[in-house]
């Protein structure tokens, strides 16, 4: 034998096991697969995240600074304009596509994923209810990232009680003057445009109106910044409106439609967006836990062989599966233009379940990693902090419960 020495044992009949699924006879079945186009969108987001976002996370955690160039990059990749209609330069691919993108980004940085979700939330009211003039003025810039948007509803009076807000808008000529202070607004500094809801009448009945404002308008400015436990690299804080003058033409929908404007956006997108961020956190936690379990040696073997660890990993796995099902279904319902009454409980369900699952999954990852789970070098503690940020955004779990209960009591399932 002229080479290599040693015996030669033929591996005969190499069988390559096929993964082709058998066809089911007769009739169509429910389809749980993403379409090839959706797979491609997911892939585009995954590659973007792995190449451009992953290297920046450490810096975002250290400096808490918003990576403004990544928003531009998301514009070039087409992610910012995912829900903008094609006539304004967007790709109009719908909620499920947006959800897949945010999930992929959030797997590595839920701060950036949430930034993308809030930007969409900021412009979606224009898409849903804005005039042609407003759409043409702002939407193209939303696609490129020249405009970054946010949504300003919450005040010190409580996000769960929006009609108690004290921000007012008073008509003067053909302008409205807005005065008030919004708080806990994501991207208060990064965003240069926002959809703001103000009270336009007190008597005989309270009336609220949605306005679209941008930072060229006097009197709309960034207020104090919050120091949060998570979502580092994503600003959060106050927006101050001090005699902010807004043209009448910047009213979204019509005067008096403020609550519908706000909850059109939050109920038909914002909650889904936060669910996607939660899905990303669960997936990121699973990846981190699996990698650690395969590498960490105790008692002479990887801890992945210990049942206690396996059970925790199993739990993260099932949280991921169930959260995805509920969230994707809710997005699908939105894309099917399901009316609010039917849609609301499912969206609420996805937000509640995905958020609580994210908190639990991140905690499990921390547990699996032991001492390494609570040190900054490893990602588990970041997932834990970020998961807890999702809870209050776009409606607390308590509000989600109320929506679901009302739906169930009205006979919805």
């Amino acid at each position: 034998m002229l080479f290599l020495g040693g015996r030669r044992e033929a591996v005969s009949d190499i069988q390559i096991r096929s993964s082709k699924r058998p066809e089911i006879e007769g009739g169509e079945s429910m389809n749980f697969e993403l379409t090839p186009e959706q797979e491609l969108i997911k892939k585009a987001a995954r590659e973007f995240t792995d190449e451009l976002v992953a290297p920046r996370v450490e810096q975002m955690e250290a400096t808490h600074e918003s990576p403004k160039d990544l928003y531009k990059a998301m514009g070039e990749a087409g992610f910012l304009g995912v829900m903008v209609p094609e006539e304004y330069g967007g790709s109009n691919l719908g909620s499920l596509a947006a959800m897949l993108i945010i999930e992929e980004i959030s797997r590595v940085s839920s701060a950036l994923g949430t930034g993308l979700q809030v930007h969409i939330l900021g412009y979606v009211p224009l898409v849903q209810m804005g005039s042609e003039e407003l759409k043409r003025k702002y939407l193209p810039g939303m696609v490129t990232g020249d405009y970054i948007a946010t949504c300003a509803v919450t005040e010190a009076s409580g996000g769960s009680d929006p009609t108690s807000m004290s921000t007012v808008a008073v008509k003067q000529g053909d302008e409205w003057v807005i005065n008030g202070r919004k708080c806990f607004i994501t991207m208060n500094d990064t965003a240069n445009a926002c959809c703001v809801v103000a009270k336009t009448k007190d008597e005989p009945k309270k009336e609220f109106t949605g306005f679209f404002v941008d930072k060229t308008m006097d009197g709309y400015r960034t207020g104090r910044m919050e120091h949060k436990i998570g979502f580092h690299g994503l600003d959060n804080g106050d927006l101050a409106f001090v005699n902010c003058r807004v043209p009448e033409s910047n009213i979204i929908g019509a005067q008096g439609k403020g609550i519908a404007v706000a909850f059109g956006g939050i109920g038909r997108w914002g909650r889904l967006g936060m669910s996607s961020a939660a899905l990303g956190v669960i997936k990121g936690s699973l990846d981190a836990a699996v990698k650690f379990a395969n590498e960490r040696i105790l008692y002479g073997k990887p801890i992945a062989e210990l049942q206690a660890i396996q059970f925790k990993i199993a739990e993260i796995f099932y949280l991921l599966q169930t959260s995805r099902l509920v969230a994707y279904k809710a997005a699908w319902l939105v894309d099917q233009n399901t009316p609010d009454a039917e849609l609301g409980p499912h969206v609420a369900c996805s937000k509640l379940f995905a958020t609580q699952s994210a908190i639990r999954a991140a905690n499990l990852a921390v547990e699996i990693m032991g001492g390494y789970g609570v040190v900054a070098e490893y990602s588990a503690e970041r997932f834990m902090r970020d998961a807890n940020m999702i809870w209050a955004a776009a409606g607390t779990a308590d509000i989600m419960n109320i929506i679901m209960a009302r739906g169930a009591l009205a006979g919805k399932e």
Partner: protein
Amino acid sequence: MKQIWVYVEQHEGQLAPISKELLLMGRVLADRLHGQLAALLLGDNIAGFISALAGLKIDNIYMIDSSALGFYHPLIFTENIINLTNQFGQPDMILFGATYLGRDLAPAVAARLATGCAADCCGLDLDEDENLLQIVPGLGGTVYGTIVTPHCRPQVATIKPGMLDTSEDLTEASALAIGAPQLHQLEAVLPDRVEAIKLIEARPKPIKEEKLEGARRIVAGGAGIGGKEGWTLLENLAEQIEAAVGATRPAIDEGWADHDLMIGQSGKTVKPELYFGIGISGDMMHMVGIKGKGVRVAINTDPKAPIFQHVDYGIVADYQELVPALLDALQKRSPNS
């Protein structure tokens, strides 16, 4: 009588090491097949090079010495090899080194002759029907494959440098005494569209100091190193025990090591006295580059890693704990001679 042709490469008057290996191997094959060995020499101003082949037992040298062959022009070189087969008959096999030129020219020649070409062989053998067995790493590097060209001739193959066992025993194996090789010289032929490829400028590459190939000790790292800091640990260990640093493809893809540190099928062949494989799974693509009877040690967190089947000593451990302990112990011991 079966003809075994070896395409010979030379650079600045020096015989390429792979060509020498192939001529030695070619002699053994020719003897086994009761055939003849021929060397193919194509180039410009190469007549003087023939003396470099002295001492190698070659039956025939087919030489084409022409300014048309001044640099590797795929169309011209292919046409001239085909012309050799027309003039001297199709051989049983043509062996090329798996060099830039060989990997370009061999498949083109094979396509012209509608025959098979096996790329990057790491071993050669013959079966009972005198077919050439062309051994290549296969299926993602977990196994070897045997490629055969059963019905077509010539059998064409490119062979990786450093893979064939060309110890002195092989040259001894040829007991046949033959005289000096017969020289056959041909004019170059020119195909159509020669002007489609023009050389504008040729710049010699700086000669890189070869640290890995002759190293007595090697510390090699793979995917399991996990990061740049871990790689530094590896480098410290190598320095402490006077070893060269090697790498597998994953470590290079991750950017921890330069491409020229790669050991294996797509990299260098080494023959160290001591080899440490750290965080390396041990697939064939890498292991095939480690030759010789030196001592091999593997450190890996995965007890099922294939590398443990190819080493003398195996340790299931996290290198990030073991290597610092080893460095510590090395520092503390009294220096021995």
